[in-house]
């Protein structure tokens, strides 16, 4: 039998039993669409998280005090002693590394911020001019903290848009904040810049912060210890070198003790990436169960079809069809159904993806390639697998008995 004739014959069968064909297409389509849509949601969540980390800044290496020996434990708690503080001098010493482009020391505290009669409590960050580039911040008005020796305190500050609006009058756009004085605790700072609206970035809402020079923050919070040092490697490839340089320099400065933890953004990102990819695979797998169900439906319908078409199968045998030809005809039918269902499902899944994307535009929903390939492949494989039994049954039919039934 020629391949083209085989396809034409099966096409004729599928058209001849239209309702049956539509039902199977629907079941297959729903299965494939479910896999595509669900994996698109999972992949969207993964990309969303990855992008959020990307917003932190590129090639970021974070240094924090204390050494975590066990994953998940609070640094310093397990060893039972307070780790040595990281100082501003430690931070400046990191500039010796050739792998590091820039560093920014960071102190974080909460402060009462006053302007005239208005006041609110906000997170106060102490840092240097380079903080802006490391975190990829934009300014709406004015300029960022001035360059210069970070050990010297200048009474200037940069504020978030929400802070500006609340303390210096309505309207997030043009405020009268620039050049005004702001009181933080018992110190006064002149506002030299307002940050552009950026929103949430991993727990910190940059619209609601006040940034002051690091030396000012040290005086304000009466501490010499840094909360973090943010370092930016010169390139992605330089991140491991930057990490080992930092560990080396810190050990030298801390009398041979390794009492800081160095986190690379890549490591954190990779962990999230792994978790979310696994999650996507898992929900995709659950959706694939519906494909198996569709496969069983195919088997069921095929078995009924063998019974319905007994006389036809007997006739085909009498006309000289071998058992192999009959089997092949049933397989062709199953594959055509699966292909049709897969095409329908891919279209429906893509449509669903676009629709969810309309509802949640912030999340980049898109089905990963593996899902687009695996869903139809699984659909075709299951329908072939589940048509083995009906096809065998048809091929084994005894022509005399098949024909004697009226």
């Amino acid at each position: 039998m020629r391949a083209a004739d085989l396809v034409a014959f099966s096409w004729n069968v599928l058209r001849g039993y239209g309702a049956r064909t539509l039902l199977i297409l629907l079941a297959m389509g729903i299965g494939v669409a479910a896999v595509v849509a669900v994996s698109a949601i999972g992949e969207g969540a993964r990309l969303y998280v990855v992008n959020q980390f990307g917003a932190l800044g590129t090639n970021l290496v974070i240094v924090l005090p204390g050494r975590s020996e066990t994953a998940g434990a609070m640094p310093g708690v397990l060893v039972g002693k307070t780790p040595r503080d990281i100082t501003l001098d430690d931070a400046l010493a990191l500039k010796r590394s050739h792998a590091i482009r820039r560093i920014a020391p960071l102190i974080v505290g909460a402060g009462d911020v006053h302007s005239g009669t208005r006041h609110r409590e906000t997170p106060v960050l102490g840092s240097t001019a380079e903080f802006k580039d490391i975190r990829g911040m934009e300014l709406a008005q004015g300029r960022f903290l001035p360059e210069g020796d970070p050990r010297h305190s200048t009474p200037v500050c940069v504020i978030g848009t929400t802070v500006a609006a609340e303390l210096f009058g309505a309207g997030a756009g043009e405020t009268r904040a620039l050049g005004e004085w702001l009181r933080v605790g018992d110190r006064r700072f002149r506002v030299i810049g307002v940050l552009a609206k950026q929103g949430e970035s991993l727990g910190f809402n940059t619209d609601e912060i006040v940034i002051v020079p690091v030396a000012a923050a040290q005086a304000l919070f009466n501490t010499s210890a840094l909360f973090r040092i943010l370092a930016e490697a010169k390139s992605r490839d330089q991140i491991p070198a930057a990490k080992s340089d930092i560990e080396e320099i810190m050990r030298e400065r801390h009398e041979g003790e390794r009492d800081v933890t160095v986190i690379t953004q890549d490591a954190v990102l990779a962990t999230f990436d792994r978790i979310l990819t696994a999650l996507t695979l898992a929900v995709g797998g659950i959706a694939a169960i519906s494909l198996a169900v569709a496969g069983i439906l195919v088997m069921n319908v095929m078995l009924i079809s063998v019974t319905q078409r007994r006389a036809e199968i007997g006739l085909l045998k009498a006309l000289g069809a071998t058992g192999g030809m009959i089997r092949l005809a049933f397989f062709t039918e199953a594959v055509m159904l699966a292909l049709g269902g897969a095409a329908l499902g891919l279209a429906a899944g893509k449509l669903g993806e676009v629709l969810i994307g309309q509802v949640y535009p912030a999340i980049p929903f898109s089905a990963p390639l593996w899902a687009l390939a695996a869903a139809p492949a699984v659909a075709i494989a299951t329908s072939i697998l589940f048509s083995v039994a009906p096809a065998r049954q048809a091929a084994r039919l005894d022509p005399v008995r098949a024909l004697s039934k009226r």
Partner: protein
Amino acid sequence: MIALAGIGRVFRVGGEEVHALRDVNLQIAAGEFLSIMGPSGSGKSTLLNVIGLLDRPDAGRYLLDGRDVTALPDDELARVRREKLGFVFQFFHLVPRLSAAENIELPMVLAGIDPAERRARLDRLLGEYGLRERAHHRPSELSGGQCQRVAIARALSMGPAVLLADEPTGNLDRHTGQDVMAVLERVHAGGGTLILVTHDPEIGARAQRRLRMVDGAIAGDDKA
């Protein structure tokens, strides 16, 4: 052309053995017109199925064109059926979703014959059996006589050496039955070998050689 020697066929029905055929010896020459008659259950249909390679005998030897086909594997049997045998059934057995033309074409499709060659043969058969106007109609839109003509054209599409007909007129009224018999006799007149099972004596009498079967054995073999 057909040589049966000591053919036996036993069915088991509810634990009992039923001898549908016992020790059948039969020689059929090419170009013969043979009718097989006998009461129901006399084994005439079983004999036709054995000759048509649809059923395997439990005993004996069957030579078709000098070749022993008794123990051929199933796929080989299918090939012999395709190339040498044509079947006509009492209930036509047309595929209901295929048109008359597609039904006639079916054996050629199964045999993998080139579409151009198929069209040429189809056109000749449609003309020969007066089906040209009905070519694109489904079996449900055809009369009984037309259906049987389609079935005969289908059986002849591969140019078989032997045409086997099982009660070809059994499901038709008298007049239409006569028409179908005329068509079959024309096939025989053209040099074909025709084996016909019937229980209508009038139809059976039209054959030159008449076989009578009783209880699975040949009880009479009249040659005109």
